[in-house]
């Protein structure tokens, strides 16, 4: 992948008559990065993901994923991304395998059953294949959610608040999964999150969104170098929010 994995230039978005949710975002994420997108509730993180996953069209500006324009080249963009929304419940009356097979087919996977079996094996949840998703705990559902997002082996993976509702063990498993996806499959990961502790353990780069404006973006190493006096990433985040 020669082009930047994700590129946003002057992206603005407004829902109907409400105030502007995104106010001119400029952001570049290189292939192979694990990017943590931080921000308060209502900062515009999910709106940014919705634009990058082609679910909504930005009011103005340019957004590209894998070098493709999210508005003009929607089909190409959706061919190279995987997406896990924050509160997805999947089709509860269907088994995990049936859910995954459906999404694999929608992504044009040539051998959907094989891809589903391989994905479930890869995520160590083959035992869930024939169980109905409606009976799953939040953690199990999240694992199947990740499985649907990677069943077609996307180049860029979008995760919206992936740790919400998970217990500490679930959070740890998710963190390990993200790191494996990044190292084994070379996936670029774009993750919206509130959990700052997780960001420092998983992400290579962070960005901070405040009221629709990107107020900070740098690598984790550079960030801790620039803010040596702060005890944790949380202190840095609070200071940045306060300064903005």
């Amino acid at each position: 992948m020669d082009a930047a994995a994700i590129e946003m230039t002057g992206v603005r978005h407004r829902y109907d008559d409400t105030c502007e949710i995104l106010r001119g975002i400029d952001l570049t994420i290189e292939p192979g990065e694990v990017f943590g997108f931080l921000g308060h509730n209502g900062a515009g993180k999910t709106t940014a993901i919705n634009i990058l996953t082609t679910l909504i069209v930005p009011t103005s500006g340019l957004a590209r994923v894998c070098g493709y324009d999210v508005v003009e080249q929607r089909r190409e963009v959706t061919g190279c991304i995987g997406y896990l929304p924050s509160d997805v419940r999947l089709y509860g009356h269907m088994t995990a395998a049936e859910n995954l097979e459906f999404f694999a087919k929608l992504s044009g996977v040539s051998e959907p059953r094989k891809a589903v079996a391989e994905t479930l094996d890869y995520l160590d949840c083959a035992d869930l294949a024939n169980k109905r998703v409606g009976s799953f705990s939040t953690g199990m559902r999240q694992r199947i959610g990740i499985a649907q997002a990677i069943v077609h082996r996307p180049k860029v993976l979008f995760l919206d608040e992936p740790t919400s509702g998970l217990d500490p063990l679930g959070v740890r498993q998710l963190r390990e999964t993200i790191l494996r996806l990044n190292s084994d499959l070379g996936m670029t990961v774009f993750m919206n999150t509130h959990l700052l502790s997780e960001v420092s353990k998983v992400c290579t780069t962070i960005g901070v969104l405040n009221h629709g404006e990107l107020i900070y973006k740098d690598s984790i190493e550079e960030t801790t170098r620039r803010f040596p006096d702060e005890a944790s990433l949380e202190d840095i985040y609070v200071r940045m929010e306060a300064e903005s």
Partner: protein
Amino acid sequence: MIATVASHQVLSLRRQRVFLAMLATLLTMTALAGVLGWSSHQTIVRVYDEAVKLLASTGKPAPPNPFLLKPTLSLLSNMVVYIPLIGALLALIVGHLSIVDDETNGTGRLVFSRQVSRTSYVLGKIVSAAIVVAVVLTASLGVSVAALLVVNRAIAGADLGRLVMFYGLSWLYLMVFALIGMVTALMTRRRSIALLSAMGAWLVITFVIPQFTSGLRPTQSLNPITDPASTSQTFFKITSKFRPYSIVEQYKRASGRILQTSTVESLGHTIQRILPIAGAAVVLVLLTIRLVQRHDFSRSANSE
């Protein structure tokens, strides 16, 4: 992609208890229509036999059995009432569930972050509804044929053809309601409001509109009986001009003609009755496609 969406939706509906309950109800009503027809047949024959005996004892000649003059398919004339009542509700549920599940589960977001166009998605949903309604009606047709075989011991080819035509017309009629279920689900984000709106549309189409277009003859909205004298009020004279657009009336009359349970009319007349139903279906298909194109699937719907 249309086939993928359609087959997935058919599987999804098969697993929904509401749908299975409605299907069981329709099949029970179909069987009931047969039982009622058989019961009335038995009663008439018994009364006729008693009359024949009485006439014979007094030395008078007996008239021919009146039941033999009735068309075979008149046994199932109640189906013309059950389809717009139970069948239409079943179709509404089918259409409603096709859309709201993707809203409330948040799966619409997953679908549209894939290589699937909105047109393929909605056409897949419509095809799935068409398949499900066809399967339901085929099951009902099977029960109807069984009922006819029980009563008459045989069924003529022409009668079977008429029955198939009746169920074909019923499929078209029910598709209108499946599409209404989809349209209302796409027009509001609240699941409960969507279902209530769909049922409101069903009430208006099935009961309210015929009240006006039939010149306020309430029994017309329930039973496919011959018109009593029409009202002379100007208001109803005007509203009755819209009668060709009352699809439930057109459905009942065309069905009566196909099953030979109502006044015989020309084939052209019957086709004219079917056209508004087909027109409504086409308009609703176009509206559904347009609504899906504009719908915001990025937000989860309120599942109240």
